[in-house]
């Protein structure tokens, strides 16, 4: 572990990462880009888990195990989302959010 880095810097990075993800999720017009943004959000939280584990309970591994767990869930989720997007593309030949407004009232 790199001892020079304080928790403060690490949290700044993960917060930035998180809000970049949120920003991307809200502003991107493409479903694939939105999916990538969601991955950013997830990774920010995974990083948080790992760092907090290291700083608070260095002798334990729960945080690391949890992060692996989240990565597995994220992989599953991505597979599902991609499957939906592919199906959508087959139907309407587009992955633009603006074209998927069928849920409207």
């Amino acid at each position, binding site marked *: 572990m790199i001892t020079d880095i304080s928790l403060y810097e690490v949290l700044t990075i993960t917060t930035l990462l998180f809000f970049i993800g*949120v920003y991307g*999720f*809200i*502003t*991107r017009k493409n479903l694939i880009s*939105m999916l990538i943004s969601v991955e950013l959000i997830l990774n920010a939280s995974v990083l948080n888990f790992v760092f907090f584990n290291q700083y608070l309970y260095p002798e334990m591994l729960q945080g690391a195990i949890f992060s692996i767990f989240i990565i597995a869930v994220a992989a599953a989720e991505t597979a599902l989302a991609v499957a939906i997007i592919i199906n959508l593309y087959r139907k309407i030949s587009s992955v633009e*959010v*603006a074209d*998927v*407004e*069928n*849920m*409207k*009232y």
Partner: protein
Amino acid sequence: MDISHALLIPMIPLLIFLVLGVFYNKIKPAVSGYVGVMGMLVSFGLSIYTAYQYFLVNGQIDGVYQSISQKTVWMRFTDTLHIDMGVLIDPISVMMLVVVSTISLMVQIYSRGYMKGDSGYTKFFAYLSLFTFSMFGLVLATNLFQIYIFWELVGVSSFLLIGYYYTKPSAVAAAKKAFIVTRFADFGFLIGILIIGYYTGTYDFETLNQPDGAAILSWTSGSFMGLSILTWALILIFIGGAGKSAMFPLHIWLPDAMEGPTPVSALIHAATMVVAGVFLVARLFPMYYFVEDGFALQVVAYVGAFSALFAAVIAVTQTDIKRVLAFSTMSQLGYMMLALGVSGYEGHEGVGYTASMFHLFTHAMFKALLFLGAGSVIHAVHSNYLKDMGGLRKFMPLTNITFLVAALAISGVPPLAGFWSKDEILVAAFEQNKLIYLVGVLVAGLTAFYIFRIYFGIFWGKETQYKHPPQESPASMTLPLVILAFLSIVVGFIPFSEFISADKAGFEGHLNYPLAAIATAVGLVGIGLAYFFYKKENDLSDRFVHAFGQFYTWTFHKFYFDELYLFITKKILFKNVSYPIAYFDKKYVDGTMEGVGNKTVWFSEKIKKIQSGRLQDYAFAFVSGVVVLALIFVYFLKN
């Protein structure tokens, strides 16, 4: 005495009603007729068995007929005030069982011929069974509430059967009229029941009817407008009875009820349901007699006497034979009420009570016979009107003879049934109230006149040319006629006073020869007049119509009572009360609720734009919500 089989008597018709009603489409008409008749035959047998056991074998203890009841508590309010369900066997209920089962059986046999080929054949028998069940329940009721339940049930089945030809607007209107008028009267009945329940603390007939019981002694407990409250309750109950029994001024539904099939008129509107009012007064007779020296009973007597005269006068002018019979029924019911009204309680004093029940019994036989005979004629001629009939004796000999027997019986010609019961009524009236006696004699004369007017009009009179020569009805229709004719001749010889009397002890009945002679003479005069007027076609009756002039027109239009009621309801009640209330209801009550609904729809229309369907909008809302919540938790809800 074991009376457990009495419960079966109403249950069999109920079972038949359910079977015929549920499997309405699956049962062939031929089968349903047999099912109905067979079921009634069993009920009839049980009723006769009950009557035999009760009257002749073991109903008496020390010469007094006992009230035997079998009941379970259905609804309990307090220890004394509870509503029971069960059967009550006493002289009048057993007598009514015999009447109802006999007439029902005859009418069901008759209907198999009369209704043949009708599309609703099975339905008709189901309704008849429902009615018979309700009527048995009514006569066997142990308390006021039970009688009220079955009272409404007979009202419903009467409504269903009057409106049986439901494609005919007049039948529909008549059914509604019958239901509404009787329902209106039953409102009085219900209030009376509630008052009795409140002041005496019981609904049970056996408790209410003890002459020295608490129920009757408690009449001093309060008064209202100069009469004790219990008297008011009894008058209100009588209003209920008057509605069912078509007493003036609630009689307007009975003539219209003739829109139903003729067997229905014979069963319900002549022999059984309409006597329920008389039965009700008889059932509560000790109360009527003892509470406040019988003031309520006086009301019964005068209403009965007036109705008898009023209806007899109208019956003379009607041209629809079923309506003549309807007014005749009303008149005879008035007779029964009158007899109850002038009755005393103990021993021979109670001759009016006995006479009333006796007349109820004999009247059921000969009036059912008259109706069934009229039905047979209508079946042959396909018309209800006297002008389409005449000279039918050649075509329908059996109907002619049986109708003649019934007509003689109702006119009070000895030794037929009507003579005996009418004589007893007149004896009772003569001993108590001369005015009512005179009315009774006058009505006896009028009765003989109008019944022979239609008899001569149908079977003699002018020689009408028929397109298709009328034929005698089939055996299924003439058999009941013959049986009822036989009964109309013999039932008068039953020593009724020994079986049924107000104090249940019975007394030796005997004929009062001078009074019987007067009544018979008056009846014969009526028959004689009808003979001269209508035996051969002549203009005698027309000349008399001219002599009476305006009075005849009034009578012909039933003294304009229908018009009066229509005026009161349509012009006054509907216009000034119902319409404003309906307007208020539509405009304000409904309006408020509709306004709430409309505003909700309007508001949701406005806000539904938020649901854009765009993923990012939702995500944005979600994220900003999280941010706002986070800020709230961080800055405002720190601890």
